[in-house]
């Protein structure tokens, strides 16, 4: 039975959440109080410890899509197929550490697209930076929809008789975005790093605690889990995607149409991570906060290794949830698979911990959003504002422009998140991970192509033809993709 909205237990959860929100904003504002110029705003004066950088990378990559979307994948597939892709994310980090990081330090870039100016010219840089701005707003906007989703779960719990519509989602999205935009715009990357460190710890603690609670809540514990899944040997970690019953051609076609396969893990996921961690300002910027390239490489590789246990933990939550909801009678399921973990947290978790884990969900969402906002603002200011709008801008004017850009990108993300919420309202079975990562895939192949050309060759490639090549790359993905 849902509790009355104003009883003591809910009040305790609400206080926990308020302490979190107040604390995180205060920490963000305090950390970024001495931003004197754009370099401080975007790179923290290159004084961020490498271990904090690794946590920043982890927190920014682990968005709400991971927190709520990965358990949804585990819930749906009852296996660890999605986790195979981690192979590629680790491999790619070693490649990036070896090839991309040093040139970025050598060229002393703040926006990584400045590298393309140096290597090819401004047309390639403008195209690449434009692709990044467009894609990141879409990608993070879609993830922000989950902020609305968790608000909707809370709303349904508090007011089960009241209808849920698009407005309910929009209020949740606006609340999270405005709060995050505020401390990011004022505090810059230092605010992002130190708030993300807290958020990464809270996120990991939340998911471990959820596993513990689920095992305890399932009657018979691990024995029941094993039995329900048909034995440990039936839990699948890998799948080749190759159907030997089909002829070669159709089998090959089917393998490329299946997202979670070994080949996709080794090739597709490796290149995907190389694109997101080598050519995306959002991801690369946090690596550039380390004092030198050696520490930056260390931070990058460490964050990759942290990926494996985190993804396994989130998928375990999803698998345990599928067992929990199938063996415990009388429990209601949410309309959308994406809401399964949020639904469990709000309806089944004990007081205080429920508040803490909801804070953890918000933490992941705010962590990835704040880092993206800072990167978008930096890229816009360095790649468009300073070269074209106000070349003679002082440090103060540049920082002000970056802050205004942060706010504008925040508004754009709210619009995208609202559109995503509308799409999910129309199709409740839509899962968010393929959408959130798929959006990056449409355009980031083109980015990776020109960066690889710039990194691996000394003279090949020209400014204008690169733009044509990038357009061809994006068009080919749109034509081939699902």
């Amino acid at each position, binding site marked *: 039975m849902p509790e009355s909205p104003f009883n003591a237990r809910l009040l305790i959860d609400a206080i926990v959440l308020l302490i979190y929100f107040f604390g995180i904003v205060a920490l963000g504002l305090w950390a970024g109080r001495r931003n004197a110029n754009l370099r401080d705003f975007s790179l923290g004066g290159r004084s961020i410890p490498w271990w904090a950088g690794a946590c920043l990378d982890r927190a920014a990559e682990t968005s709400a899509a991971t927190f709520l979307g990965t358990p949804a994948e585990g819930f749906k597939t009852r296996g660890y197929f999605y986790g195979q*892709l981690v192979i*590629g994310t680790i491999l790619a980090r070693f490649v990036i550490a070896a090839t991309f990081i040093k040139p970025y330090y*050598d*060229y*002393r870039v703040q926006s990584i697209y400045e590298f393309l*100016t*140096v290597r*090819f010219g401004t047309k390639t840089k403008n195209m690449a930076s434009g692709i990044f701005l467009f894609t990141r707003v879409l990608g993070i906007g879609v993830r922000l929809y989950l902020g609305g989703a968790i608000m909707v779960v809370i709303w349904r719990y508090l007011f089960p008789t009241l209808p849920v519509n698009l407005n309910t989602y929009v209020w949740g999205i606006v609340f999270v975005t405005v709060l995050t935009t505020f401390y990011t715009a004022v505090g810059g990357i230092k605010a992002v790093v130190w708030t993300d460190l807290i958020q990464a710890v809270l996120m990991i603690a939340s998911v471990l605690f959820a596993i513990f609670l689920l095992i305890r809540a399932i009657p018979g514990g691990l024995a029941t889990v094993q039995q329900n899944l048909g034995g440990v040997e039936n839990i699948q970690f890998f799948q080749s995607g190759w159907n030997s019953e089909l002829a070669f051609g159709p089998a*090959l*076609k*089917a393998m*490329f*149409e*299946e*997202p*979670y396969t070994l080949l*996709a*893990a080794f*090739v*597709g996921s490796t*290149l*995907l991570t*190389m*694109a997101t961690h080598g050519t995306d300002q959002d991801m690369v910027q946090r690596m550039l906060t380390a004092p030198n390239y050696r520490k930056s490489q260390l931070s990058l590789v460490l964050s990759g290794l942290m990926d494996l246990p985190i993804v396994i933990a989130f998928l375990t939550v999803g698998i345990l949830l599928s067992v929990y909801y199938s063996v415990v009678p009388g429990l209601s399921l949410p309309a959308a698979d994406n809401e399964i973990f949020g639904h469990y947290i709000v309806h089944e978790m004990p007081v205080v911990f429920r508040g803490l884990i909801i804070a953890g969900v918000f933490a992941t969402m705010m962590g990835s959003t704040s880092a993206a906002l800072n990167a978008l603002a930096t890229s816009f200011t360095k790649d468009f504002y*300073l*070269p*074209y709008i106000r*070349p003679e801008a002082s440090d103060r004017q540049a920082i002000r422009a970056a802050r205004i850009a942060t706010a504008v990108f925040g508004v754009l993300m709210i619009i995208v998140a609202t559109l995503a919420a509308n799409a999910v309202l129309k199709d409740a079975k839509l899962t968010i991970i*393929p959408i959130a990562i*798929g959006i*990056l*895939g449409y*355009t*980031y*192949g*083109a980015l*990776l*192509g*020109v960066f*690889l*050309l710039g990194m691996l060759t*000394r*003279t*090949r*490639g*020209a400014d204008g*033809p*690169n733009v*044509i*090549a*990038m357009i*061809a*790359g994006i068009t*080919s*993905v*749109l*034509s*081939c*993709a*699902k």
Partner: protein
Amino acid sequence: VTIPGFDVFALFTGKIVPVQWVFGYFMPDWWPKISWPWFVFVGCVVTLAISVLSPPRKARSSLPRNTSGRFRNESERRVSLVRLFALRIVDAPVN
């Protein structure tokens, strides 16, 4: 890929008509509708294959002339200096 869009031609008549933009409708049936982990692979291979074919950039010996004060604005001067600095690294002998 099918993306919610609008009728481009209707825009000229002052109307916004929502339609679905369908890419790849011309692809043959045997061609796979590739799943999302492969998107970057496809985009990267196509971009790299086209851009690597384009002719090498002009001889860099002409670049230092840009540092002689003939710039349209401050950012152009800054970019040229960065380019000059970077080219020294790129052109450094490899082992």
